[in-house]
């Protein structure tokens, strides 16, 4: 069974700038996921909103929240409400589109983020399921079209089959891998691991020391 709320701090938390945990803190978390994947500064940001997000993004502060996440801010960062101005000052182009069609990932709180700069572009489709908790249901990066079940944390590791065996071994000492997928783009491979619990910061650092390209996505609490 897939459990979205794994920690007591998913429920008593996060500490955040108002006004909405799903449309503000959760939007920030989707932005942060995109930030973790892109890893650098974008020149262009396009946000597509669907359903409830499309109808209420302005009232809920979703625009600044999602941009603040893309800039790497935490949801309780005092700069969150000023994120749009900060991004403008940094020369980033931003477009917000309230889509009228239904969410392609089938959730009323859906945001699809496109980030690009001169080197690369990514697409991240996330939904905010309540209380600041999010799911990531599609990621397009480096030619891969990654489709996780949704719940975080998720670990993505580009690499060979040998790397995959090593990662599997390392993860087995840390937590249960609840789902695992293999993706191919031309001659490159990428492995997705859905984890049963959030890793401690030091545990992620240890993995990243050997696998610098890894992407670790977790919630905000």
């Amino acid at each position, binding site marked *: 069974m897939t459990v979205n709320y794994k920690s007591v701090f998913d*429920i*008593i938390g996060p*500490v955040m700038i*108002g006004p909405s945990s799903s449309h503000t*803190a959760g939007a920030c978390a989707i932005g942060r996921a995109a930030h973790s994947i892109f890893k650098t500064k974008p020149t262009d940001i396009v946000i597509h909103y669907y359903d409830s997000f499309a109808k209420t993004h302005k009232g809920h*502060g979703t625009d600044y929240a999602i941009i603040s996440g893309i800039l790497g801010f935490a949801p309780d960062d005092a700069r969150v409400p000023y994120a749009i101005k900060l991004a403008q000052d940094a020369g980033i182009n931003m477009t917000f589109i309230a889509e009228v069609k239904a969410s392609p990932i089938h959730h009323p709180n859906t945001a699809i983020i496109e980030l690009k700069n001169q080197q690369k572009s990514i697409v991240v489709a996330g939904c905010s399921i*309540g209380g600041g908790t999010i799911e990531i249901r599609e990621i397009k990066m480096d030619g891969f079209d990654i489709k996780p079940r949704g719940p975080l944390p998720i670990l993505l590791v580009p690499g060979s089959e040998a790397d995959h065996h090593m990662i599997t071994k390392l993860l087995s000492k840390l937590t249960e891998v609840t789902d695992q997928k293999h993706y191919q783009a031309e001659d490159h491979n990428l492995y997705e691991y859905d984890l049963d619990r*959030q890793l401690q910061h030091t545990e992620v650092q240890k993995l990243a020391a050997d696998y610098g390209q890894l992407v670790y996505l977790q919630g905000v609490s």
Partner: protein
Amino acid sequence: MYMHVSELVAAAQVKQQPIYELMITQEMSVTHASRDDIWQAMGRNLDVMAAAIEKGAAGEGVHSKTGLTGGEAVLLKKYREKGHTLAGDTVMEAVQNAVATSEVNAAMGVVCATPTAGSAGTLPGVLFTLKDRLDLNRDQMIQFLFTAGAFGMIIANNAGIAGATGGCQAEVGSASAMAASAAVAIAGGTPEQSSEALAIAISNLLGLVCDPVAGLVELPCVKRNAIGVGNALIAADMALAGCTNKIPADEVIVAMDKIGKNLPDSLRETGLGGLAATPTAVRIKERIFGHHPTAQA
């Protein structure tokens, strides 16, 4: 991981441990964090709650950018000082705390989502009133939050806590149920009574829709937190008196989930139905966002 209220209550009875203790043990096993780190982290959340309650009722209070909400925690405080409240000071102190927190949230201040930001006034509203009423110390207040979290996780994993998927019942309803069950525990009730309080609290708010005016977390959200605290205290007192809900907590949670799924889109945080569709709300929306709300960058 405790997935059902019945399971949590049974574990508390078998292990002869309070629910907050079971919650801390589960958290340690899930996150691999130390007991001390987990305890301290909850203490920091408690401090955020205290600060919001104080800020919302201090001086002239706080006011949102739109002017739709703010300053009413201060009105409540002044009214309470006269000593003639109809509902009694415990209830009205809880209402003041809830409104203060929710006004801070609407004014883009810092809050702790419990379980959501829209419902962030309810749990602290009850807790800080019980602090005065039952003379709770800091450790007991932290215990209260772990107890509430244990019940809240079960609600969230079985029914969800987003207004966009479940309506306001999933937000203020869940918050009120968490507060009711934790209030029973901190007042010395049994785990079974906590479960009854949860069942009563949710049952009383089933069907509550999410209809924010102009899509803002202001009207009616701030005042929905006032009914959240009143309902929590009533449900807790009823359970402590020995009243039972007859329909068990786990079945009530499933009912809430089903009701949420059957709510039309217009009543699930789209700002299109309910109070948001009233002529006054439409005028408010036009005043704030103009005639074409999606055209503004």
